Structures are given as C-alpha cells and as structure tokens.
C-alpha cells in the first residue's frame, strides 16, 4: 500500500512538472503575456524588452541604477550615494533612477551582486553604480556579462590594476583630506589625549583613511594645541570586520565604542558606514562622562546627536555622478580611475566638491577657527602631511626623512592609495601579513 501511495505521488509529480515546464518553456512569449494580463501594473516598466533594445523614442527616460551595500537611509555611506543619485535625477531631464539597497549577506543572504545587476538591467538601466568594495568581483563579472551597460564601481581599483573590462570605471573622492580634518578636530578637542578609531574591515582604503586621520590628529596636536592637556597623544584603532554591524559575524560596533570609552578615549572617529560611535558618545555624555564623536560619510550624520558631534567628513557624489552619467548618455564616456579632489575654494560647495567637512556644534568656536586654519593650510598646500620621516607599525619605512608625496601625481597617488600598514604609533593591528 505504501508503494501504491508513492506511485500516486509520482503521478501527481509528473503532472506538476509538466505544468511547470509548460509555464516556463516558451520564454519568448512572456512579454506579450505580461502586457496582456497586467496592463496597469507593468505598463511603465515592460521588463523583458528593455535590455537589448536601443531607446525607442527620443523622449524615453535614460535609466541609471545603483546597488547599495547598506540601507538607503543609513545616515552614512549608502545614504550619501543615494542623495548623489537624487541630485542627478533632479537636475537632468528624462533621467530616472532605480536602485536596490541592503545588498549584503546579512540582509539578502541568497542574493549575489550579479543577480541584482541583472534585475536593474532588466529594468532598463543603462548605467549602473555599485557602491561597495565588496562588489569588486561581482561588478567586474556583471560588466563582462553586460557589455552594453556602463558600470561605475565605487572605490575600486580594477582600472588601475588593468582587470576592468572597457565598460567599467572607478571613482572615489579624496577622503584622505576629510579624515585628516576629522583627526585634527579630534586632537583639538580631546582632554585625555586619547583618540579612538572605529574601523570597518582592513583593506587599502581603510588603512589609507585611518592613517590620514592619525596624520591630521598628530599635526594638530603638535602644532595647534598650545597647552596640551596630556603628555602625549594616543591613537587606537579596532576593526569590526565589515562596513557595518552583522550580528554574530562582525564585532559589535556599539561594544567597540563602549570599550574605547571605558579605556578613557574621549573622542571617537567612525570609519564605518553607520553611526554607532556617535550614538554611544552621546549616551556616555548624558551619563556624565563627556565623549565626542566624528561620524563619517553623510553630510547629515551629526543630526543624530548634535551635542557631541565635532563634525563629519562626508562624500558628495552628486556632481561626479552627473558628469559620468551625462557622458555615458551622450556617448562620450571614457574609462577612468578617478580620485576626485575637494574644491579647495570651498570644500562644502555641493555643486563642485567631491568631499567636504561639516563642522559640528560640539566643536568649540576657538577650535572651529583652528580647524579652519588647518583646512586652509591643506588648501593652499602649505600643509602636506605626507612628509617624511614616516614609518609603518612594523618599523619599515613609508617615507624617508625629507621625502614628500604630492597627491594628484599618478605615482604618488598609487603610493598613498596602497599604503601597506598603519603608521607607527597607531595602536592596533592593520597589516594583514
């Protein structure tokens, strides 16, 4: 009887399979079926047909897509990109923006970047931005699979290393300056002389940025503080393992921030996509132990705790996106590896500067003045922090005595881009060998 029952299941099964294959095999016909059955819902998108076909009419929207690693409203890295996309959408006619956010193993465990990009292409996207170092391999593979689509991978180096196919470019703002300014602000305001950096994962970008923050702090501590409140500056870093908290996988940034606070650090610099450092600094201050913080990435990040926020180094992607998308749309796009300068005339000009620094309410007026002096020094070139002697943590030499690097020249840019280790006197493990 059992086997009879099983036979029946097999029978039903065959039937199901037949139905399934009947549904799926005529892959050529569905577009008709789609428009027939849901005229209203899909009229705007008509998925199947958009990918290969050139623009149907002159007025058709140019669609650009974005894949974000975090939520579009994270008050950090992903939100800065999202706002950059909105900037473009507002200013260019007949341009439409589609996106998928939270593309990471915690939020979308079964999804790969390539899958998401396929979806965006199916939506008609002709230009796609991917915004995480994590998407480097996936973006490259997707660019190979969609040679007609232009890709912009944020903060990659595929163009530099020659791995990029022709339709893939790289873009990054020179956040090294933003971090120097953040480090300087931290050094100006600390009372204990202990500054801590909540780091994401270790790679070329994050090493570069933590070193920049340290250089800024060191300079301002040595040169702009008349009566240092402590014997010396300490600067520590802890890496959580990813760009933001993934419970059970990364260290918990809330915990890391609190450990730093308990270890007498009174300024936290955030290197991660989200704002835990700022939130914990605020809690500690409310509980009676004043701690300041500098969040990262997004111009509006201070809003979560104005009273303890010294300022935020932020990205301003809009102008660069607009340039790239316009170029791609008019057929003048060229593959480049771009590392964009701030607009030194006004680093907070949202139409011209790739990065900026928004001063926070918690930074005292005197310190704001001092910080502005520092920014002006960076702007006119009188302050160049890539000046030797600089040694790495393991004792090897980064810059010899008297040696300087000039950001903007290709050779020196590469040396800055690919810093090997944390600089000496940063407490924490940064080398990966």
């Amino acid at each position, binding site marked *: 009887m059992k086997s009879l029952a099983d036979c029946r299941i097999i029978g039903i099964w065959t039937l199901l399979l037949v139905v399934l294959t009947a549904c799926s095999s005529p892959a050529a016909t569905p577009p008709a079926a789609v428009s027939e059955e849901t005229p209203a819902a899909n009229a705007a998108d008509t998925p199947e047909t958009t990918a290969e076909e050139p623009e149907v009419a002159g007025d058709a929207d140019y669609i650009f897509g974005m894949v974000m690693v975090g939520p579009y409203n994270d008050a950090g890295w992903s939100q800065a990109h999202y706002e950059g996309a909105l900037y473009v959408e507002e200013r260019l006619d007949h341009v439409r923006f589609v996106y998928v956010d939270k593309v990471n193993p915690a939020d979308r465990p079964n999804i790969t970047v390539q899958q998401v990009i396929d979806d965006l292409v199916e939506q008609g996207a002709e230009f796609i931005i991917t915004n995480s170092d994590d998407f480097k391999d996936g973006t490259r593979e997707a660019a190979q699979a969609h040679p007609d689509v232009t890709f912009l991978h944020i903060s990659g180096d595929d163009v530099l290393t020659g791995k990029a196919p022709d339709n893939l470019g790289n873009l990054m703002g020179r956040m090294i300056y933003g971090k120097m300014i953040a480090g300087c602000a931290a050094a100006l305001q600390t009372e204990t002389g202990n500054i801590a950096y909540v780091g994401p994962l270790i790679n070329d970008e994050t090493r570069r940025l933590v070193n920049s923050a340290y250089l800024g702090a060191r300079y301002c501590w040595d040169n702009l503080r008349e009566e240092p409140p402590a014997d010396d500056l300490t600067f520590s870093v802890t890496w959580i393992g990813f760009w933001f908290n993934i419970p059970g996988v990364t260290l918990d940034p809330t915990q890391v921030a609190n450990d730093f606070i308990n270890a007498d650090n009174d300024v936290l610099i955030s290197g991660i996509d989200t704002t835990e450092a700022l939130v914990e600094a605020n809690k500690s201050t409310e509980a009676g132990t004043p701690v300041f913080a500098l969040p990262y990435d997004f111009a509006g990040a201070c809003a979560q705790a104005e009273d303890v926020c010294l300022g935020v180094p932020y990205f301003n992607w809009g102008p660069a996106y607009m340039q790239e998308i316009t170029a791609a749309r008019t057929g003048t796009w060229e593959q480049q590896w771009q590392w964009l300068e701030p607009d030194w005339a006004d680093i907070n000009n949202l139409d011209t500067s790739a990065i900026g620094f928004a001063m926070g309410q918690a930074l005292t007026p005197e310190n704001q003045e001092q910080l502005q002096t520092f920014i002006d020094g960076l702007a006119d070139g009188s302050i160049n922090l890539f000046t030797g002697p600089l040694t790495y943590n393991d004792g090897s030499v980064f810059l010899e005595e008297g040696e300087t690097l000039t950001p903007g020249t290709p050779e020196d840019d590469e040396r800055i881009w690919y810093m090997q280790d944390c600089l000496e006197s940063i407490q924490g493990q940064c080398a*990966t060998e």
Partner: protein
Amino acid sequence: MQGRSGKLWAQWGLVLGLPLLALLGALAFTTLVLLAVGSPPYPPYWLLFAGVLSSPVRLADMLMLAAPLLLCSSGLTLTFAAGLYNLGIEGQVIIGAVFAMVPLRWWPELSPVALWLLTFGMGALGGMSWALLTAWLRVYGRVNEIFAGLGLNFVATGVTLYLVLGPWKREGSASTSGTEPLDQAIRLPTIEGLRLAPLAPLLALVLLVLVWWLLRQTRWGLSLRATGLNAVAAERFAVPSRRRMIEAMAGCGVLAGLAGTIQVLAVFHTLTPSISSGIGLLALLVTLLVQAHPLLILPVVLFFALLSVGSTQLPLQLQIDSSIGGVLQGALVLCMLLLRGLQQRWSQARVWDNE
C-alpha cells in the same frame, strides 16, 4: 475493500488537501499584510510568480537556490524519520563548505573533474563529521541534538570567521566579505548566459530519489522509521536504534555538506562566513511543512526557491520590502502546523465519539 480505498482517499485528501488549504490561508494572511502596508495585492503576486517563471535568468537562479535547499531538505527527511530535530544543519552546511575549500585552495591545478570529485567528497566528509559530532553528543553524551546542533552552528561560523579573517584572507585585506573568488576554470560549469550549473540540481534530484528509496523501499528505512516512532520499542524488536540515529545524522550531514559544496563551487565561488545563507533553516521549514514526506519535498522546495528569488523584484518594481516573500513562507508553515493540529484534534474527537 470499499473501506480500504476510502481510507486511502481520505489519507490522500489530507496529504494534498491540507497543504492546499494552508496555502490559501497563507495567501490570505499575506494579502492582509500587503493591504495593511497599502499595496494592492495582485501586482506583488504576479511579480513573485510570473516574474520568475517568465525569465530564464531568474528560473536558473531559482534552480541554483533550489539545489542546496533540496539537498538539505532530503537530509532532514532522514533525521526527521529517525525522530531527530537536526537544527545543526546550518553548521553542517558551513563545515561542508569549509572542507570543500581545502582541495580548491591546495590543488587547483588538478584536472577539473578530479578536483570537483575531490571537492564534493571533502564537502560531504565535512558535513558528515560535523553531524556525527552532534550524533555522538546525543547518543553518548545525552545532549539533546537541538542544543548540540545549535551550539555547533555557532562554532562552525566561528571556524569560517577565523579562516576568512585569518589564514585564508585575501591578499592585503582582512574582511568578513570572503576569500579570494575561485578561478573561472575551477567553478562548476554553467550554461552560457545563465548562472545555472546543471550538475547541482541534477545531483540534488538524484539524491532525493535515493533518500526516498532508502526510506520507503528498504528494510533499513523501515527500521529507521521505527526508531523515529519509538526508539525504545524499536530496540525491543531488535532494531539497533542508536545506530540508526547515528546513520541518519551522518546521512543528513553528507547531504548538507554537499549543499555547502554547491554554495562554494557553483553559487558564491568564495567562502564567506554566511556561506549557508540560511538554507539549512529554510530546509527545516520545508521539512516541517511536508512532514518529511520525501516526494512532497520537491514541489515545496521549488515553491520556496521561487518566493526567495522572486521577492528581490518587489522593492525594485513596487517599492515593497522584499521580506514579504519570507512572510508568505512563514505563514505557510504556521498555517500548515495549525491545520495539522486541528485535524489531529478533530480525528481524535471522532474516535472518542465512536467509542
């Protein structure tokens, strides 16, 4: 004769009717959720189902998700039959993936076929040894397999974290995002233009049939089910129930390890701490839903895979959060459990009435 075929029909009515009823209930619930967030319910459903079935690319993605899910569900069928709740399956998938990485990292120059055989073999070995650890704790250490399994899941994640951030990290970086991706040449071959590696679903199907045959057509399967119904009684009838439990766990571990191997070799092409991506837990839902009936597993697995792949379309086209696919999956299992409970209560009441 009449009574017997009537009983058969009633049995069948339960096997097919209950899931259908549960599906209706789940759809009703999900529709309510959709209406509550202010979305008209029809477009999301259309997108979920037709959106996947009408696109070869998504159909291929669905099959690639279904393959490891099917392997895990088949494995859990064995442990369910033996009366074990193998919540440690996530860890078995993870350790399978870790073991699979070993030949891929050490002998990438082997001929691909040999390398793949070795990789699958190692993956199976990894999953099995992790499962045997749980079985050993259960049978000899008297640790409930649920707790042992859950504990070992954490340990497995810890092991991958250590490897990904430590000895197997990518050159110049330390990130939980994974190891260096596999060379194109040693990935499981795919069909041009799709991410479908046909070997993966094929392997899963063959092993499902094998599990069905073992459970339903062999003496071993009979004694396994006897163990599951009542291990002590089975022992009295000379069924080596401890041994059967260990064998069921080992079998499940092998299948979970193979699932982990597919995740590495054909889906992600790298080892990440979240390499199992919750597939083991999803398989638990599948097995709960079909009461570990081996042949009903396939349609449910396909359905779940379809929901998971289709739901990514929701935010993109309708600005609805993609978790609505998960709501439907969860509601389905809940409805099914509820209906089954009600049905048992109802049939018990009838027995008492008759007395």
